[in-house]
C-alpha cells in the first residue's frame, strides 16, 4: 500500500507552500499531487512554480502528479488547463471531464480524481479505455461499493491496468459552486473577494445553531465539517486499495502520515478525535463514525 499527499485544497501563502513541499520531499510519502484545484484566482504559485516544486519532489524520489481544477467555467481557465496537459513531464489528475477530453486528445494517461463521476464498472472500463491509469473513488462511496465494483467480471481482465486510490484523511471536498462562500462570509462578492481565502488556511468552519461543526467553507468549495479519518480501516483496504490519500491539513499532516504507515497492517490503531468521521467508508452517512 502506498500513500499520497493530495493537492493543498486551501489557499496558503507561497512561502508556506514551499515549506510544505520541502517537508514532503523529506517525508516517507510515495506520491505527491500538486496544483490549484479550487479557484483560478488563487495565484500565489503559478504554473512554473508548481513545475519547479514537482521537479524538486521528483528528484527527492517522489512520484509526482499535477492536479487540475474541478470547476472550469471560463475560457481563460481552460487555457491554464491546457498548460497542465502539455507539461510534457508529469502525470495529470483530471478533476473535470474537460481535462480528460484534452488528455485523451493527446493520447496521455491520466488519474481520474474523486470529483469525476465514475460509479460503476462500465464507466470505469470506459475510462480505462480512454487512458485512465489511476482511479480515485468518489468520496461518498463505501468499502462495500468499491469491493462490489472491483469484483465484477467486467473488471477482472483490466484490473492490472489501473491503480485504485481512496481519500483517507482530511476534510472531504463535498461540493463546488459558482458562488464563493468565503467571500460571502465576509460580505463580499466573488468579484471583489480580495483573495480573502488566504486569511483562512484551514477554511472557515460552519456550525449549526446548536454548535455542531457541519461544513468548512473553502472558497467555492464546501468541505465536510468533520475530518475524515480512515486510519483504522487500512487493514481492510489491503488487496483492494493501492494508494491512500492524505489531504494536507494546516498542521500535523506528516505526523499523521507516519501514523498511517505504522497502521497499514493494523499494528498501530489510533483513537479517533471527536471531530473525526469515517461514515462514508462504512456505508453510513458521511459525517457518522462507526
Amino acid at each position, binding site marked *: 500500500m502506498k500513500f499520497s499527499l493530495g493537492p493543498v485544497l486551501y489557499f496558503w501563502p507561497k512561502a508556506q507552500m514551499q515549506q510544505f513541499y520541502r517537508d514532503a520531499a523529506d517525508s516517507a510519502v510515495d506520491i505527491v499531487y500538486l496544483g490549484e484545484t479550487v479557484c483560478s484566482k488563487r495565484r500565489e504559485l503559478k504554473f512554473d512554480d508548481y513545475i519547479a516544486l514537482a521537479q524538486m519532489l521528483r528528484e527527492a524520489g517522489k512520484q509526482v502528479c499535477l492536479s487540475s481544477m474541478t470547476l472550469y*467555467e471560463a475560457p481563460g481557465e481552460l487555457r491554464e488547463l491546457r498548460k497542465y496537459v502539455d507539461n510534457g513531464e508529469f502525470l495529470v489528475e483530471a478533476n473535470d471531464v474537460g481535462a480528460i*477530453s*484534452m488528455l485523451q486528445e493527446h493520447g496521455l494517461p491520466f488519474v481520474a480524481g474523486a470529483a469525476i*463521476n465514475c460509479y*460503476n464498472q462500465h464507466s470505469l472500463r470506459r475510462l480505462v479505455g480512454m487512458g485512465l491509469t489511476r482511479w480515485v473513488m468518489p468520496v461518498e*462511496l463505501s468499502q462495500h461499493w468499491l469491493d462490489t465494483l472491483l469484483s465484477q467480471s467486467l473488471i477482472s481482465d483490466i484490473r492490472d491496468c489501473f491503480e485504485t486510490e481512496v481519500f483517507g484523511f482530511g476534510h472531504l471536498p463535498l461540493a*463546488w459552486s459558482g458562488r464563493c462562500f468565503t467571500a460571502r462570509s465576509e460580505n463580499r462578492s466573488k468579484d471583489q473577494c480580495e483573495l480573502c481565502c488566504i486569511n483562512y488556511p484551514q477554511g472557515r468552519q460552519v456550525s449549526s*445553531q446548536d454548535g455542531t461543526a457541519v461544513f468548512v467553507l473553502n472558497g467555492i468549495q464546501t468541505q465536510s465539517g468533520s475530518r475524515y479519518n480512515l486510519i483504522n480501516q487500512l487493514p481492510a483496504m489491503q488487496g483492494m486499495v493501492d494508494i491512500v490519500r492524505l489531504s494536507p491539513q494546516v498542521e500535523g499532516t506528516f505526523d499523521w502520515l507516519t501514523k498511517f504507515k505504522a497502521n497499514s497492517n493494523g499494528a498501530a490503531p489510533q483513537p479517533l478525535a471527536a471531530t473525526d468521521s469515517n461514515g462514508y467508508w462504512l456505508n453510513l452517512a458521511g459525517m457518522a463514525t462507526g
Partner: protein
Amino acid sequence: MELLCPAGSMPALKAAIEHGADAVYIGLKDDTNARHFAGLNFDEARLREAARYVHQHGKKLHVAINTFAHPDNYQRWQQAVDLAVSAGADVLILADIAVLAYAAECYPKIERHLSVQASATNAAAINFYRQFGISRVVLPRVLSMQQVRALAKSCDIDLEVFAFGSLCIMAEGRCYLSSYMTGQSPNTAGACSPAAFVQWQDNNGSLESRLNGVLIDRFAPDETAGYPTLCKGRFNVGGDTYHALEEPTSLNTLDLLPQLYAEGIKSLKIEGRQRSPAYVTKITQVWRAAIDAVMADPQRFYVQQQWQQVLAGLSEGSQTTLGAYHRKWK
C-alpha cells in the same frame, strides 16, 4: 425556443401539455432519476400512457435517467433506457457515461441530452461528452449569463438552461452534501436532503428543522418555516448566524429571457417534478406567455408584472433570484 416543463404524475403532465409546454420531462418510479420521491413518477403503464398523450398533442416526451448506476445492479439503468425507448420517449436525459454509451450504441436514433447531473460547465467538458452522440447539453446552474453566452458562441451544440424553480447552488452531479448528512445523495439515490431524515421540533416557541439530527434552521413564530434543504439552512460562521450558503429562494430568469433568446438557447427548463399539477399549470401559463412574447418581438419584450406576481407566489420563501446568471450573486 422550447418550453420544457416538469411532471411527476399524469395530471401534472396533462396540465403542462394543456397549458402550452412544447415538451415534458419525467422520470421512472425508482432511483434511476434525480427526483426519486415517494408517490412521484411513472411506472411502465403510466409511462406508455404519458408517451401516447404527449404524442397525440404533437409534443415531445423526455425521460430523465440521470443518476449514476450502481455496480451491483447496473442492469436496472439499462432496463430503464430500454423501457423508456420502448414506451416511446423522444429524448433520454442521461448523466452516467456508461448509460450514455449504452443508449448511443443500442438506440442511436433516440436523442440523447446531457443531464445537468453530468456537470458540463465548459467547452472541453461538452467536447468530452460528444463521443456519446449527445445533441443537447443541460447547463448547470453555476454559470453566469456571460459564461452561458460564451458557451453558446463557442459550442456547436444545442443548449438548455434552467429558467425557473428550486435553485441548486452547487455544480450539480458533484455535490455530496446530502450523502454526507444522510447517506443518500442525488448521484447515488436520486434525492437531496431526503424527507425520511427530516424532523420538526418545537423548542420553547421556536420551530427547529433537522436533517438526520443536524439542526438546519430555527424559526421564530412569525417566520415561514421552509423545508430543510441542507444548503439553505442558517448556520454560524465566525460568530454570525446567517444563510451561509444560500437563502431559501427560487431561480427566476424572466428578466434574462431576451438575452437567452438572443443567444439561441434552445430550451428553457422549468424545475419541479415534485410539484403539484396546479403549480405546473400556473408556471406553464406564465412561461408560455413570456416565450411567445419574446419570440413575437424580442425588442419590445418586457416582463409583465402579473407574471412576476404569479412566479413570486410559486417561489420558495416567496423570493426569487437570478442566481449565478447574475454575476453579483456569486
